[in-house]
Every structure is written in C-alpha cells, then in structure tokens.
C-alpha cells in the first residue's frame, strides 16, 4: 500500500510537473509571440525634411531610410567595415574607378517585385539628378552599365576609394523604380524640376527594407510596420512609432512613464538626474560634433578676420570647459573637422587654450583692445547640446581677450540661409556623418574651391587660403587606400587645423536611453539607429 501510495504520489507529482512545464512553455511561447508582435515607441525630436530617399537629408531621415530602403552595401556594427546588403559581392578595379556589383537574386521589394540592376541604376541616377541635400554623394558618378538583371558596373569620374562607403549611406537606398515612376518619380537630368513624387513618398514607401511606411503625420508621429515578406532577417518587432517629442526632458518623462521605449536625444545632464531601475542608459562615443566657424569674406565683421585674428580667437576658447558646460564632460576634444576615429585622425594635435598667446596675437594683428563681433547661431538643441548655452560659453571665453560677442540666435532655417547669403562672419554649426569615410568632411569643410565652406571662407581671395594644395591632397586620398589614404587625410586634417576656419568645439557622447526590456540598441555611423535589430522582450 505504501509502495502503491508512493507510486500514485510520484505519478501525480510528475503529472503536475509536466502540466506546469507545459504551461510555462506555452506562456513563454505566447510571451515571445507577444514580444514579436509588439510595437516600440521612439521619442524623438524629428527633423524630417522629406521621406523621399533622394530628397531627405537629416538625422531622423537616416533612421527611417535605413529601416525602409536597403542599400547595396552597409556598415557592420564596428562602424568601419563595409558588408553586403543588396549586393552579395563586388569587385573594384585597381585604379579605383570601376565598381562591379552582384545583386542578391533573393532580394525583393516589399510588394514582392525583385530588386534588379535597373532599380539600382535608376535610384543612383535619380539621387544625383534630384539635386537634394545628399546629391553630393553622387558627385563622382560617371556612368552605370547594366550587365544583367543582377549585375551592374558603376564608373566614377576620378579615382574614389570611398565609393563603397558612399554606397552604404542611407540616402543611396534602392527604390522600386516602376512603382515610384507610376507616381511621378523620374531619374532624368531634369528630375529636380520634373519629379513630382515627393508628396507620394510622404504616405508610401517603395523599398526592400525590413519595414514599410505605415503613416506619417508631421509634428505627430512616423509609423512603420514590419515588412512581412522581407527577403532577409525579419524585424523583431511588429512596428515602430517614432513619436514627435520636442525636448530631452519630455523624452525622459515619456521613458519613465512607459509611454516610450527608446529616447536617444537625452542630454548627459538630464540622464544623470534620472535614477530608474527600469531605464537603461548607455553612453557611446559618437561621430557627431558642434563647431565654430569663420567666414572671412562675409560682410558685417568689424575687423578683417585674418589668420592672426582667427587663431587668437581659437586660442581663447576653453575647449575642455565647453565640454563640461554643454554635456557635463560627456564628450571629447576633436582636433580637426574630420571626426575622431575616421581615417586620418589618429595623433592629430588636440585644440589648446592659451589666453596669453591669444592676446599677443590680437595685439600683433592691431587689436590690443579687442573688438565687438556678432555670433549668429541656430537656437536649438543638437546631439544633447544646447547651442545657445555653447554660444554663451564662447562669449565668456572670448571676453577674456576683450573680444565681445553679440549673440544672434536664429531659427535653423534662417541660420542655414544666412551662412550662404549674405554670409555670417562668425557662427556655430553641427555635423553628423552620412557614412564612414573622411572624404565627406574634406568635401564639406575643406578649403577647396567650390566646396561649401571653401566658398564661405573665400578660397582664392582670402590670404592663405588658395585651395590648390588641399585639393591635390584630397585627390591623392581618393586615389589611395590603406595607410597611404590615412596619411593623405591626416595631411588634410593638419591643414584644416592650420587654416583656422573650422574650430570643432565638442564631440559629444551619445546617450542611448531605453526601457530594460529592449535590446539590440546601437549607434551606427551610417544609419543612426538600426531599427531592424531592436528586440522587445
């Protein structure tokens, strides 16, 4: 009896255990299914100017485009290595002008249409001809030849060792050409005036990425849903809502209340004040930075902004103090306009503060008693930095050499217009990379004729800025690879430091803040925040 009783009890215990295990497994499966079906909410101040890959040019655009439009190549998590995306393999000619790509035959757009070489050609030509903010990426494009539906050859005008990196930029996302053309898009030379698809792209997407556009309401939310027929590894969440949230404080409050899962514009000072076991804060170095800049040819400066004057002002800036004051020390000094970690930046000399030398230089330039000059800047927060605060810090610093700054805060759009016309003698700006590669910085900040800051600084007319040597070095960098390329970019970096036109002030760390049930968060130099890798447990 006793034995029988034990058997019964053991049987009952085993049955109960099995039932509990079964129930647990069922619950776990259901939990996993729920997690996979759940949406994530990203609280973010959106700066979207368009949802059309050829017209968009902003930080939020990078997040959206990388989620919806696959590119030929992309950037590995180390933020340096180029890895396949739509192209499974590629060959580069020895002179770095011819690039052959083999597309993945399995790749399809979200409507099931195969991705072909024609779509790639059309998308790249259109990006060039729309002449949007990111069109400069296609400046070196000469021709695209289609060998077969899954093979194409791209030729550049000059050697371009960074072309593979350029193709990982989110703006070079591949579009379903037939679908887009049916709604007013075209890739003709006249596309900048004849392409009418911008509005259609605000409510539709035509990519081959892990998500598709569900809806977009300006100043409200951008909603993405998982591409159920994605040809690659499917997204881990059913959808993403990027909720317009203007400031860091509100983003932090939404995170604390559970109204948002992710916020990535919380400044380090605010992050330090939040002690919540349910929120994870990860601080990572970024390639973003904020800089001060001179336009010696701009009207409105009370004194000629000669090299001595520029150097004096650069020496008066307390760079370490600026990092402390704007991001609570969570940032880095940046020597040149090429961000730390990019090719050619190793061992560049960090900016220094020397008030005595600055005063001596000003006296030598003929201004021992200083002068008063305006500082126009966009009154906004970027990368966790309040630019108004930074402007006030510069005002404090330059007062030490009797240079009195008159602060002129402007809206972003007014400032962006003013720096080109009529020009601003002294300003503050900011920059984030479009891909991993130093050429974009040489192109934007280099003292070369025709380049944006080259024009603003007056290359060719401003003494000491002839542009020829820097252009030669840039061409050398584009034609080289490996250490030779690094050496050429280092030369450009040193020249940028010597020019004293662009003065990088702060390279802030990026605060990734997210709920503890979120994983897969990382900062990408090309894509900002790769949404397809995020998991909600």
């Amino acid at each position, binding site marked *: 009896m006793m034995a029988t009783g034990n058997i019964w009890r053991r049987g009952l215990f085993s049955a109960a255990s099995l039932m509990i295990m079964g129930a647990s497994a069922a619950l776990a499966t259901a939990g996993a299914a729920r997690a996979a079906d759940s949406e994530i909410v990203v609280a973010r101040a959106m700066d979207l100017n368009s949802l059309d890959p050829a017209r968009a040019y902003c930080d939020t655009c990078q997040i959206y485009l990388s989620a919806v439009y696959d590119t030929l190549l992309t950037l590995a998590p180390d933020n340096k290595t180029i890895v396949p995306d739509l192209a499974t393999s590629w060959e580069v000619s020895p002179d770095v002008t011819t690039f052959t790509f083999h597309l993945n035959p399995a790749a399809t757009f979200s409507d099931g249409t195969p991705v072909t070489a024609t779509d790639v050609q059309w998308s790249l030509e259109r990006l060039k001809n729309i002449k949007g903010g990111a069109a400069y990426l296609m400046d070196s494009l000469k021709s695209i030849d289609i060998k077969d539906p899954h093979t194409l050859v791209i030729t550049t005008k000059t050697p371009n060792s960074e072309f593979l990196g350029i193709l990982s930029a989110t703006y070079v996302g591949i579009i379903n050409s037939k679908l887009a053309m049916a709604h007013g898009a075209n890739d003709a030379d006249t596309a900048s005036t004849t392409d009418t698809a911008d509005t259609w792209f605000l409510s539709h997407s035509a990519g081959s990425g892990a998500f598709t556009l569900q809806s977009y309401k300006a100043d409200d939310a951008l909603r993405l849903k998982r591409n159920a027929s994605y040809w690659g590894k499917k997204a881990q969440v059913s959808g993403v809502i990027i909720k317009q949230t203007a*400031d*860091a404080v509100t983003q932090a409050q939404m995170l604390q209340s559970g109204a948002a899962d992710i916020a990535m514009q919380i400044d380090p*000072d605010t992050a330090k004040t939040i002690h919540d076991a349910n929120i994870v804060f990860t601080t990572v170095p970024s390639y973003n930075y904020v800089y001060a800049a001179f336009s010696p040819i701009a009207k409105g400066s009370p004194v000629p902004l000669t090299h001595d004057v520029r150097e004096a002002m650069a020496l008066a800036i307390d760079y370490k103090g600026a990092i402390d*004051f704007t991001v609570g020390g969570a940032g880095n000094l940046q020597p040149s306009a090429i961000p730390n970690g990019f090719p050619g930046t190793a061992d560049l000399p960090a900016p220094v503060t020397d008030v005595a030398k600055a005063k001596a230089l000003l006296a030598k330039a003929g201004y021992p008693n200083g002068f008063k000059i305006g500082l126009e800047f966009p009154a906004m927060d970027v990368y966790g930095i309040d630019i108004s605060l930074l402007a*006030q810090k510069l005002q404090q610093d330059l007062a030490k050499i009797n240079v009195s700054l008159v*602060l002129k*805060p402007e809206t972003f759009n007014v400032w962006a217009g003013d720096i080109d016309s009529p020009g601003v003698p002294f300003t503050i700006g900011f920059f984030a990379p479009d891909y991993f590669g130093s050429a974009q910085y040489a192109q934007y900040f280099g003292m070369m004729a025709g380049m944006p800051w080259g024009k603003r600084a007056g290359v060719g007319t401003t003494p000491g800025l002839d542009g020829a040597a820097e252009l030669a070095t840039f061409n050398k960098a584009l034609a080289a690879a490996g250490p030779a390329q690094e050496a050429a970019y280092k030369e450009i970096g040193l020249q940028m430091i010597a020019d004293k036109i662009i003065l990088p002030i702060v390279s802030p760390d990026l605060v990734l803040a997210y709920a503890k049930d979120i994983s897969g968060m990382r900062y990408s130099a090309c894509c900002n925040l790769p949404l397809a890798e995020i998991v909600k447990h």
Partner: protein
Amino acid sequence: MSVHTIVAVGLRRGLFSRFAGRVSWRSAPVILGAVIILAAIVIAITIPWWSPYDPIALAGRRLQPPSLEHWCGTDALGRDVLVRTLYGTRYSLTIAALVLAVGVSIGTLLGAVAGFVGGLLDSAIMRLADITLSFPPILLAMAIAASLGPGLVHTAVALIIVWWPIYARLMRAQVLNVKGLDHVDAAVVSGAMPGRILFKHIVPLCWSPILVNMTMDVGQVILLASGLSFIGLGAQPPTPEWGQMIAEGAGSFYSWWIAMGPGLAIFLVSLSFNFLGDGVRDFVDPRSRVST
C-alpha cells in the same frame, strides 16, 4: 483759482490723513506689495555696487543646487541664479516703466483729443484702438516682436503698441464725463482756447482711473515681457531677464532651481503690483471698496 485747482488742493490737503485713516488689517497686502516693490526698485538701482558675482560670468561649479554659498544654486554655465534674478529686476522694471510711460502718454493724449474733439477724429482714433484691442494681447505682441526681431527694445515697442488703446479708451471716457461739468462750461464761456480747456480744465480731473490701471498693469507688462522672452522673442542670452532665465531652466528641468528664482520673482513682483493697484483703487475710488 479755477475749480479744478481747488479740487486738486483739497485732495492734496487730505491725502495723508485719508490714507492714515484707512490703514487697517485689510491694508496689509497693500503695504506688503509696496514694500516688495520698493525693495525691487532699490535692488534694481543699487545691485551693481554690492552684487557678489557678475551675472554673466562663472560664479562656481555648474548646476549646483541651492546652498549657503549660492542661495538659489547655479545654472548650466555656473552663474549664480540669485544674482541673475536680482539683476533681472532691472530689466523687468525698466521695461514695465518704459512701456507704461510711453503707452500711457500716447494713449491718454489720443483718448483726450478723441473725447474732446469728437466727430470724425474721435471715430478714427477709436476704431484704430478697437482694431488693436480685437487681437489677443499676447498674439499681437508676438506678431510685432517676431516681425521686428528679438530684443528688449523691440519687446518694449511691441508692448507699447498693445497697451496704448487701453488708455486711449479710458481717457476718452473720462474726458466725455468731465467736459460736461460746469467749470468747463465756464471756461468755454470765458473764451479759453480749446487746448487750454482740455489740458488745464479737463485732463487733470481724469487721472484717477488711469493711475489705478497703470498700477495694475505693471504686473501684466512684466508677465507679457517675460512671456515673449520665454519663447525667444524678447531678451536674448546672456541677458539675465526673468523670462529668458525660465526658458533656460525649462531646458534643465531636473535642475529645478534655475527656473525657481526668476519664477518666484515674477510671481512676487506681479502680485505686489496687483496688491498696490487694489490699494490705489480703494484710495482714489471709495465706491469700489467692498463693505464688510
């Protein structure tokens, strides 16, 4: 001695005794308000001589909470919030004084002329005032300040444009009341010039409600000017103006002390002017007092 002079002298003679006779526990808010306003004026005038810190220079470690060294803490640039708040008194009181001095001058002059002359000129001035008053004050001030560009002077101009019609209406109504009095008829009969009748026999008897309104409006002007600075249309950094300081504090929400100083200052000064305005109204217009 004209009739209005007799009235004015009579008022002056009884001024102190009337005030002293009315002091009671109900006067406490008025006295409190007057003391705070007096203190604010003294601070505004004298602060450069005794301030321990420069309002736009580094005073200590950044983002320090209130302590014995920095009673209201420090802001994101390490500036002393209390010192900046006290310096802010200069800007707020100056802008209020400027707006009311110019706004009242323009408004009362136009209102007096409109009420006295009447006819087409009256209609033209009053319709202009009506149009201005038909816009919500903050909206109109924002539109004007935005079109002129940010800055304290432009803020003052915007507020003057918002404020003058109030006083034009008030003065016109007073002039219409007074111009029917006997002493005015006597002046007309005696052949006095219109200008003399208006400015010597009518306007001096119209100031009571203007004075009351001015006192009450100081707080409103300070609030509106701070509001314009808060949204970036008024004072610009690094000016220690209260609205501008609150805007900076809003960006560092968890460092609550940055906005606390200027916030309390706006509250205290506006409330004090309201208390004082109530007192002045009770004093010059006994009918408005509530019997208890």
